[in-house]
């Protein structure tokens, strides 16, 4: 991670420690005004002064220079909250993640995996309960098995049985055996052979995002004029995830055709990457620009860039994470994110400088836009999607006049007074 926010982290840790700026400056032998410049990332810091400040704040110097991935902190907090019978030292969480980043990463990864598996189990359990076809098939198999078991036992155990009854039971057995064979085959086909069954097992959008992540959100074959068919999707297990991924790739290919890489590069060397200006220059809509910017290699834009796409239900359809900006996956994000606010004002481009509460003081420029999807007939109400580009603010950039304070998710947001709070925060105190 680039060292652009050391000053912000010093400020954050100082505030957590309850130290005044002048006090910390005195302890490390510099003026308060110089510390102020450092804290606003306007002076680089390193060497002995960094070590002295870290000692004064009782943290590892690396914690100040490298910071900790905000998503990692968020995942660790949630892992601590979900733990049963174990009380994690939440107040030492940053220290833990700073000193043992590898182990912290493993723990966070395991927790995400558990959450994902629990969701899969929930889906399957729900399916057994509510899938009428499955319930009917199971009932058919078990009822037939019951009839066979009962009838066969009568024939085996009854010493003297009238020929009329015996013939009837033999006939019944034959009928039930045939029925059982058919219903078993049908059930197995439904469970194991159909792609529909496969579709429900995993979380396709997660698999698709993982595929994009593994490819750094950039596909040279498509950039060179290819299509989604040129991308090998065989590593994706489920058919549903392959379908979702192919849909994302088709959109990517459309965006590439509308904004070819060389032309985008030229435009970016001539001016700041302003989405509205780029939309006008390439004669494309704003979502195309936002998606295209998010998929460019980082060297084109000079700083990390993330993306969130959601529908009007608030479900996140696609996300590309950006360091320092936590993006919860399952419908638990903060409603004040511009991507959701844009849904209140469709077709109005929104630009906001945001900072996530409870995290580093890092600021992000967010561009959001909500637009209607195609309708299939007259008088059909369109469904809306919303997209948000998230860009880390450049080091030394002037502070925006207005910064919107948003949360990551309610569980790890310290804003107790928020009117939109859905559940109590697991933070015992402001972070």
């Amino acid at each position, binding site marked *: 991670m680039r060292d652009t926010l050391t000053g912000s982290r010093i400020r954050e840790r100082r505030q957590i420690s309850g130290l005044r700026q002048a006090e910390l400056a005195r302890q490390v032998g510099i003026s308060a005004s110089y510390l102020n410049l450092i804290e606003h990332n306007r002076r680089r810091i390193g060497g002995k002064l960094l070590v002295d400040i870290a000692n004064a704040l009782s943290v590892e110097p690396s914690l100040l220079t490298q910071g900790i991935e905000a998503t990692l902190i968020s995942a660790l907090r949630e892992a601590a909250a979900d733990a049963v019978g174990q009380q994690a030292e939440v107040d030492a969480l940053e220290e833990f993640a700073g000193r043992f980043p590898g182990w912290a990463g493993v723990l966070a990864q395991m927790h995400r995996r558990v959450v994902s598996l629990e969701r899969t189990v929930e889906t399957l359990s729900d399916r057994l309960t509510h899938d009428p076809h499955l*319930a009917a098939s*199971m*009932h058919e198999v*078990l*009822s*037939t*098995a*019951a*009839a*066979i*078991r*009962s*009838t066969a*036992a*009568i024939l085996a*155990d*009854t010493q003297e049985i009238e020929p009329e*009854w015996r013939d*009837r*039971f033999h006939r*019944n057995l034959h*009928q*039930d055996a045939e029925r059982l064979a058919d219903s078993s085959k049908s059930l197995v086909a439904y469970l194991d052979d159909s792609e529909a069954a496969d579709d429900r097992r995993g979380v396709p959008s997660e698999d698709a995002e993982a595929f994009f992540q593994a490819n750094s959100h950039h596909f040279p074959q498509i950039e060179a004029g290819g299509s989604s068919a040129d991308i090998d999707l065989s590593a994706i297990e489920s058919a549903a995830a392959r379908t979702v991924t192919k849909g994302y790739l088709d959109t990517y290919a459309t965006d590439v055709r509308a904004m070819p890489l060389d032309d985008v590069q030229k435009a970016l060397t001539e001016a700041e990457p302003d989405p509205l200006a780029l939309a006008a220059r390439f004669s494309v809509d704003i979502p195309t620009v936002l998606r295209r910017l998010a998929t460019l290699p980082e060297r084109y834009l000079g700083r990390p860039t993330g993306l969130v796409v959601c529908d009007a239900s608030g479900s996140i359809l696609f996300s590309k994470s950006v360091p320092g900006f936590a993006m919860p996956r399952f419908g638990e994000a903060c409603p004040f994110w511009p991507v959701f606010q844009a849904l209140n004002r469709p077709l109005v481009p929104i630009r906001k400088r945001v900072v996530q509460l409870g995290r580093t003081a890092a600021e992000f420029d967010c561009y959001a836009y909500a637009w209607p999807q195609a309708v299939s007939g007259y008088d059909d109400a369109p469904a809306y999607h919303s997209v948000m580009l998230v860009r880390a603010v450049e080091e030394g950039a002037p502070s925006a006049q207005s910064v919107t304070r948003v949360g990551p998710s309610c569980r790890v947001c310290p804003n107790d007074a928020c009117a939109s709070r859905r559940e109590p925060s697991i933070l015992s105190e402001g972070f």
Partner: protein
Amino acid sequence: MSRKVLLIEDEPNIAEAIRFLLTREGWHVETHAEGSDAIEVIQGANPDLVILDVMLPGKSGMEILRNLRQLEGMQHLPVLMLTARGQSRDREMAENAGVSRFMTKPFSNAEVLTAVRDLHAQATRS
């Protein structure tokens, strides 16, 4: 006087097997395969014991049982419920509806006979 069991089961071969077993035990067995009019059939038959399937055409066994227990004189009628769904919540639902004994398919003949004997003995004692 013969003891009477009313078997409400839409699976004819299960009904036939149980009818054979219970007849040999000295029971008079009446069968019915519909859920929608099951309450009227029970009231009309006045059985000593009911064997009731859960998944019936017209009305579920659970609903039939709940309605039955609301009727005067039917609170203590022994009801053995048969079902392909043996999950704990189904069992709990059946208990809340007032079932006397709950049995999951595929059951053994011995289990059915034991349950019927036990339920009848309990009803006779009380």
